[in-house]
């Protein structure tokens, strides 16, 4: 049989032994059925990568293929399959195979015709079986499937937008908006106010509470939402009293109008939770407001918009002149930047307001869609918020943001302005997000989506300066997922953060990640950082299994002890194998150079396979061939294949040099 007879075959490889999943939990059971992988004529080392990819949904730590097989529960799971040991009468050269079962299975989802043959060439246990089946499976390409998670429900408490349209169809008019629920009471103000209202200053009973109750009861179309009983603050009471002082009365304003306006003002304040935050002492009296409005209405006939409102950040009726409204936005922001009003009731107010505003602006931009197309697009980019406030480098705020966003999912957007609390999810919400993401990752492992979500989570945590165990967990999980996907850029960011977080004394899987860190620096050949990692390790940490492993890997490479290195490769704990996979290729080349120089006249191919931990002779041969050593393999009379090291000369040196050329990773410092 020729060495290259592996083509046109598909390979079934069984994958097994997750030790921990992305969350760092020990995994006892296989959460997914082993996948069937087709590797038609792909060369073995590619096969391997494809395997890795195909098996992502396993979502679990991958050990190097088949090296330390454990007794497999799979066997019982698929009793119809033959015991692999019956397939191959040979015992393996590698010790592990004798006592462990190799799970063999075909895809459990479809049942292709499978017939198994003992691995050709390799007389070890059948790590690789060939089967003639060209039925493709698409299940591992789940990347394309977008998650079908329902988007978060729309914000509560926002009146239907039609309310505005119904109430205000004319573009220029009263600046103060009235909610739909007030429409009724506004139309019949007399009903709620006693006509014989005592104007006397001191003895007048505060009318507001009574008022309120009557409105709550009277309107037939009042929203079903139960209205809570409001305790009117004293400042409001005195405001009402002041309004009816004879001295303050205005002959041009009728009492009905006044009462209506008063009620409107107070109710709106109460609905917006502003009762306690408005300075009622300086609030214009209802008659003044009415007069003001009248003036403006008159003005608005000439110049549309430019409306004034009793309090500056109230929802604005949106006119066609969007620009002016925007300017006002900016002005408001610059007076009280949203991130300043960090806590308490004020914050809530702001949130509802800006939501109102958004609704209003969106509505208006619908009306004038052509003009505002650009703006709309921009808004989309900003996550739907009107953000004309932009600066390349936002000035540092006074303190951390306290998020108020309740949505679970949010896509990542690099901040160019101070974060808004309403866009930021508090840790409470983030915890749910994490659970959701974990589930999603397990389900459809869409890395692009997951990575994006994790980045936004990290951002939310950072802007809120949340640095606790939960933060660590988020970074750890993201790091593991990034590792699994070979996204070293993201991984490195997480790792850098984790290092800092552990330094703060936070608990987590510090040792696991320190070990990764060492392996990572081995991969990037970053000697300076490696030295500082060594400097940071405590004696106790050096004894940790994972860290010790990583240190041994380092030292074996430093001393060129490839024998030891590949043994360690086999024993990699946790997810370190993902990292080691990245540099195992170049180390193989280095070792191959070594072997070629030292051994004469030849070595059995099997020796190469074993020393460099290839899956099979075939893979070893392919590796040699891929690196220009096609002439160095020779079949002996007794059927064994030898590798003519004596004739290799400089064959592999250039490949080695190329492999060791600087590692460039996105996001590396």
């Amino acid at each position, binding site marked *: 049989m020729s060495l290259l007879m592996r083509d046109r075959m598909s390979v079934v490889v069984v994958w097994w032994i997750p030790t921990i999943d992305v969350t760092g939990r020990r995994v006892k059971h296989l959460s997914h059925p082993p996948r069937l992988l087709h590797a038609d004529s792909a060369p073995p080392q590619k096969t391997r990568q494809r395997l890795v990819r195909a098996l992502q949904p396993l979502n679990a730590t991958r050990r190097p293929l088949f090296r330390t097989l454990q007794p497999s529960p799979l066997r019982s799971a698929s009793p119809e399959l033959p015991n692999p040991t019956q397939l191959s009468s040979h015992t393996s050269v590698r010790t592990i195979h004798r006592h462990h079962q190799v799970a063999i299975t075909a895809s459990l989802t479809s049942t292709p015709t499978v017939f198994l043959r003992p691995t050709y060439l390799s007389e070890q246990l059948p790590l690789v079986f060939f089967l003639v089946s060209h039925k493709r499976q698409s299940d591992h390409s789940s990347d394309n499937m977008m998650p079908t998670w329902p988007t978060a429900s729309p914000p509560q408490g926002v009146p239907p937008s039609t309310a505005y349209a119904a109430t205000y169809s004319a573009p220029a008019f009263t600046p103060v908006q009235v909610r739909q629920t007030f429409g009724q009471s506004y139309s019949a103000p007399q009903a709620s106010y006693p006509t014989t209202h005592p104007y006397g200053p001191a003895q007048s009973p505060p009318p507001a509470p009574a008022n309120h109750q009557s409105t709550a009861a009277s309107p037939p179309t009042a929203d079903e939402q139960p209205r809570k009983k409001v305790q009117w603050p004293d400042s409001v009471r005195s405001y009402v009293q002041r309004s009816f002082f004879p001295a303050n009365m205005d002959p041009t304003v009728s009492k009905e109008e006044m009462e209506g306006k008063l009620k409107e003002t107070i109710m709106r304040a109460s609905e917006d939770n502003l009762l306690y935050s408005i300075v009622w002492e300086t609030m214009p009296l209802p008659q003044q407001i009415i007069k003001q409005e009248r003036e403006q209405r008159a003005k608005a006939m000439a110049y549309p918009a430019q409306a004034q409102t009793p309090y500056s950040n109230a929802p604005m009726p949106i006119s066609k002149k969007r620009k002016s409204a925007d300017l006002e936005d900016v002005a408001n922001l610059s007076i009280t930047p949203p991130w300043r009003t960090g806590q308490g009731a004020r914050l809530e107010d702001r949130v509802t307001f800006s939501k109102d505003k958004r609704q209003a602006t969106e509505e208006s931009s619908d009306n004038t869609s052509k003009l505002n197309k650009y703006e709309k697009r921009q808004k989309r980019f900003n996550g739907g918020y009107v953000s004309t406030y932009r600066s390349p480098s936002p000035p540092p705020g006074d303190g951390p943001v306290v998020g108020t966003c309740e949505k679970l999912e949010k896509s990542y957007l690099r901040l160019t302005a101070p974060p808004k609390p309403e866009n930021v999810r508090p840790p409470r919400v983030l915890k749910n997000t994490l659970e959701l993401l974990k589930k999603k990752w397990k389900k459809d492992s869409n890395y692009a989506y997951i990575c994006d979500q994790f980045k936004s989570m*990290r951002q939310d945590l950072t802007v809120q300066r949340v640095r606790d165990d939960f933060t660590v967990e988020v970074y750890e999980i993201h790091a593991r997922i990034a590792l699994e996907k070979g996204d070293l850029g993201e991984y490195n960011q997480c790792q850098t953060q984790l290092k*800092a977080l552990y330094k703060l004394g936070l608990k987590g899987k510090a040792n696991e990640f320190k070990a990764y860190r060492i392996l990572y620096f081995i991969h990037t050949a970053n000697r300076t950082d490696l030295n500082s990692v060594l400097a940071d390790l405590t004696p106790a940490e050096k004894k940790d299994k994972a860290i010790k492993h990583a240190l041994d890997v380092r*030292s074996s490479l430093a*001393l060129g002890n490839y024998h030891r290195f590949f043994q360690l490769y086999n024993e990699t704990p946790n997810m370190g194998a993902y990292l080691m996979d990245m540099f195992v290729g170049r180390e193989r080349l280095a070792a191959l150079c070594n072997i070629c120089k*030292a051994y004469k006249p030849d070595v059995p191919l099997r020796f190469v396979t*074993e*020393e460099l931990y290839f899956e099979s002779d075939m893979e070893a041969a392919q590796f040699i061939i891929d690196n220009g050593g096609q002439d160095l393999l020779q079949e002996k009379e007794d059927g064994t294949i030898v590798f003519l090291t004596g004739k290799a000369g400089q064959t592999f040196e250039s490949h080695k040099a190329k492999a*060791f050329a600087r590692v460039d990773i996105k996001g590396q410092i």
Partner: protein
Amino acid sequence: MEFGPALYHEFGEAWKTRDGYRLAKTISPELTPSQLSSIWQSANGAGSYKAARDDDVKAAIKRGLSSSSARLDGIGQKEIKGWVEVYFAYWQAAGILAQVQQTSSWTNAYEQWKVLINALIQGYNSHEFEAWTIPCLYVAGKHLRLFAMQADEHISVNDSSATAFQDDFDPELQKHQKLEDCARVLNKVFTICLSDRAPLEESRKWGLYYIVNLLFKTYFKLNATGLSKNVLRILTAGRGDMPDFHAFPKSQQVTFKYHEGVLCFLEENYAEAEKHLTEAWNTCHKDAMRNKELILTYLIPCHLITTHTLPTEKLLEPYPRLQKLFLPLSRCIKQGELHKFDIALQEAEDEFVKRRIYLTLERGRDIALRNLLRKVFIAGGFEPVAKEGDKPVRRTRIPVAEFAAAISLGSEEKVDNDEVECLLANMIYKVSQNYALPSMFLPGASRHPRLSTLIGGLIKGYISRERSIVVLSKSGAFPGTGV
């Protein structure tokens, strides 16, 4: 020096002789607190302890400087104006520094000192300061760095909010906030020295190496050796327009060469490193023990790699610290005691790592191994002499098992034959130069394949896998060791 006639006189004198170092002394902060506070008070006007108004102080300084330099030619009003700013900043700094021991407001001290150095930079940029005054920059730069380090030490990690909007945060940055800032200021100083286009005799380029050395120190402290490389690159590029390196003061030469050497060392470019360090060693003042010790710390591991030589006891005699560092290892290497070597390396690991020589010294294991294998070879004796009078030939076919036994000596662990073969293969493959040191960390390991074949490995010979023996070269199986 108190702000008064004495200072102005000194200023005039320094100016007259164009003595930069003398001038620099007038803005030195290396004074006792009482001296500093007397400076602070001296400018406040006759005995008035209340802080005078800034403009008054400036006016006073200006009067003083003008009067003392009235007789001098060459000093223009512009320059005087620049120096007034400098001395004013110095006066304010003195006020802060006088208190700094009690208040430990090192951040303030740093910030004020930065004002001073900025006034100097401004002076060179727009007030036509002459090149001979650059020692003032030395003094200012040197202390800026010291104050920055003090400030960083006293700063608490949490009171910085600058990083609030980055997606991630980096406590390392916060830890060295002031020093990073200092590096930027020093870089500015570096630029004003480098960019001077005046003829060499009166060029600020003479200040380059002092400033570069300061930058190196800062970058090393910041663990940002990459930035040092940038500076080196700029220097190499501009070397054509610069005064000859050897024309600079020797102290600057030594410091520069030391840093250049260490930078190469960290990049594992041991040949270059050795060159620079040797130059530093030869130029170093014979009594500068501390400096010599520092140089040797890197030069010895360098030698171990490049020439496989170990330091003699005589060389280390004056340096007890180096003795402690290197002697145990040297002994093990010499004797080929592999296991003891491992233990010695482990014991001193922290020390080595701190000095960033651990990864280099670790490679000494190769030499130890080579020496051990050599012993095996010698113990093997000679082949039976075939004919009378023939020169006896050493036994060159040695079973791998013999080496395996030797390697396992003293250690609990059993080393299997495959691993021994691997180690032997390494010995054969590895070349004695740093070009082909172990593959890891050395992107250019085989950049010189031809060279590596020329030099040959630590052992000459080959392994026969089939028969499990090592066939060593009949002539010089262990190159450079006499057998």
